[in-house]
C-alpha cells in the first residue's frame, strides 16, 4: 500500500451519472487484485474533507475506476480534467478469492447490480486469464443504466441482462434472472458466485446461494474515513465478530455475514 500522486489520463462520462477515470498508477496496477480498492482525495481543500473509496475497475497502463456521482466527493471528482493529479492510496482491503482446485470443474457466476459492476469487470478479466468458465448477469433499473455489457462480453462467453422496467433484457430483478439461469444450466460444476450491488440485492442473491450450497462472495460498500483499519468507522457484523469493510473486506463470504 502506498499513497501516490497519480496523473489523470482521462475522466469521461459514460452514462447518466456514471464516469470512468483512468489513472497513471503503475505501482497499484502491478499488485492490485480484483475486489481491492483505492481511496482518492477528491480535492486538496477541506471540501470534501475525507477521501472516497473506489474499487478497481480495470488494470491497463495504470488503473481505471468506474464511479457514479452520488454526492459532493464524486461530484468534484467528475469535474477533474485530464492531466490533473489526485492522491491515490492503495491497493486496500482484501479482494475476491478465485476458485481453487476441487474435484468438480469450477464455474463462476458474476452478478452485477447497477454501479456494482465496477469491481466485477476486472474480476471477469482475471477469471478469463485463469480459464474459469464464467457467466455474467447484469441488472439495472432501466436500459440506460446498464453498465459494462461490452466489457463483460469480452471476458465471458455468456452475458445476460435484466432491467427492473423491462426496457432491455429480461424484465425484473437480477435475482429473478439468476433463478432462471440456474434452472436452465447444468449443475455438474462447482459454482462460485461473485456479487456486488445494492444491499437488498446482495442479501437476496446470498440467500439463493445459501439454499443451493454455492459459495458466494459479496463486495460490500460502506462509508469510510481512513480506509486502512484505523478509525473503525466501517464495521461489518459477521459470525466471527465485528470486521472492518476496509481492511477485512470489502469482499466477504456471504455465509459469514450477519445481515
Amino acid at each position, binding site marked *: *500500500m*502506498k*499513497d501516490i500522486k497519480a496523473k489523470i489520463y482521462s475522466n469521461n462520462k459514460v452514462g447518466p451519472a456514471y464516469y470512468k477515470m483512468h489513472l497513471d498508477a503503475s505501482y497499484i496496477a502491478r499488485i492490485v487484485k480484483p475486489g481491492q480498492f483505492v481511496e482518492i*482525495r477528491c480535492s486538496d481543500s*477541506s*471540501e*470534501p*474533507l*475525507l*477521501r472516497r473509496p473506489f474499487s478497481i475497475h480495470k488494470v491497463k497502463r495504470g488503473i481505471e475506476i468506474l464511479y457514479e456521482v452520488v454526492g*459532493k466527493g464524486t461530484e468534484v471528482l467528475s469535474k477533474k480534467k485530464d492531466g490533473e493529479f489526485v*492522491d491515490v*492510496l492503495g491497493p486496500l482491503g482484501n479482494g475476491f478469492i478465485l476458485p481453487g482446485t476441487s474435484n468438480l470443474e469450477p464455474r463462476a457466476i458474476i452478478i452485477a447490480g447497477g454501479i456494482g459492476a465496477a469491481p466485477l469487470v476486472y474480476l471477469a478479466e482475471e477469471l478469463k486469464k485463469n480459464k474459469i468458465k464464467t457467466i455474467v448477469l447484469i441488472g439495472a433499473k432501466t436500459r440506460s443504466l446498464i453498465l459494462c455489457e461490452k466489457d463483460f462480453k469480452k471476458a465471458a462467453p455468456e452475458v445476460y441482462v435484466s432491467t427492473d422496467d423491462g426496457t432491455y433484457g429480461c424484465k425484473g430483478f437480477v435475482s429473478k434472472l439468476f433463478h432462471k439461469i440456474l434452472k436452465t444450466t447444468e449443475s455438474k460444476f462447482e459454482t462460485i458466485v461473485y456479487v456486488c450491488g445494492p444491499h437488498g440485492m446482495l442479501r437476496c442473491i446470498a440467500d439463493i446461494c445459501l439454499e443451493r450450497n454455492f459459495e458466494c462472495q459479496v463486495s460490500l460498500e*460502506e*462509508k*469510510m*474515513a*481512513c480506509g*486502512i*483499519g*484505523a*478509525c*473503525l*468507522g*466501517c*464495521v461489518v457484523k459477521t459470525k466471527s465478530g*465485528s470486521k472492518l469493510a476496509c*481492511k477485512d473486506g470489502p469482499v466477504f463470504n456471504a455465509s459469514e455475514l450477519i445481515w
Partner: protein
Amino acid sequence: MGMLGVKIGKIRLKNPVMAASGAFGYAKEFEELVNLAEIGAIITKTITLNPKQGNPMPRICETQAGMLNAIGLQNEGVDDFIKEKMPYLSKIGAPIIVSISGNNIDEFFILARRIDKIKNIRGIELNISCPNLKSKRLVAQDAKATYEVVKAVRKVTNKALITKLSPNVTDIVEIAEAAENAGSDAVSLVNTFLGMAIDIDARKPKLGNITGGLSGPCIKPIALRMVYEVSKNINIPVIGAGGIMNSDDAIEFMLAGAMAIQVGTANFVEPGICGKIVKGIEAYLRKHKIEKIEDIVGGLNDKR
C-alpha cells in the same frame, strides 16, 4: 534536544507533533505509509478495562469541512492491548502514550496501575471527554469529577499524565485547573464537539448513535480560542488539538500557548501528515530565525 524538542511532564519529545488518540489506531495500520519514528509521540486508540463493541453503524458522516464520528470506543480491552499491541508499539521508536477510559474512578485506577507497570509506555492520556458514550455527563464536564479521576490515577503512576478535555463545557479553564490541581502533568484539548446531522429524505439521523463528535477544520477556531484561554490560566503544558491540517495550523496553536499539538482527522485525509507538519514547523523556525520551538509557545502578540 534539537530545535524542535519539547518536554511534556517527564517525556522529552523530539518534536511537538503527536498523533491523536482514535485517529491513528495502534500505529501498525500506518506502518507501510509513514516513518513512525518521525512522530513526536503516538497516542494509541483509547482502551478500556473490558472489551467494548462500540456503537451501531453508521459511525461516521462527513459534514462541512469536518466529520462526525460515533465509534463508541470500540476496543479489545487492556489485556489484549498489552498482549497483542504492545510488542509492536514497543519497537517503532516513537514515544507511546496510552489513552484510557473507564466507567468510573475504579476502572481508571485499575487501568492506570496496569499501564504503569509497562516499561515501554511513556505516558497516559485520560480520555474523560469521549462524547459518544451512554453516560449523561462526562467526567470532563465536571471540575470535581475531573479532579477525583486525575487524583486517583496520579496515585498509581509516575508516568507523564495528560488529561484530555472536552470542549462541550461552559468554562473549560475551570476543568483544566481541576486537572492541574489534581496533579496532571499536562492537559490536551480539545476532544470533539458533540454534534449531529440529519438525512432529510429519510428523516433519520446520519449516525447510528444519533449524535457524534465533530472534528476537522471546522472546529479549529473554537479549539484555538480554548487553548489560548486555558494556557493563560494554568502552569502545566497545554497540548493543542482540533482541526489541525497543516503546519500553519500547528503553529497557530503553539503561538496561542500550546507546548505540543495533536493531529487527528488529518491522518485520515493524508496518512503522512504528521511528518509533513514536523517539516513545516522546522521551515517556519528557520524562516523566522527562531532557534528553538519553545520560543514560539505562547508567543502570540496580543497586546493592544
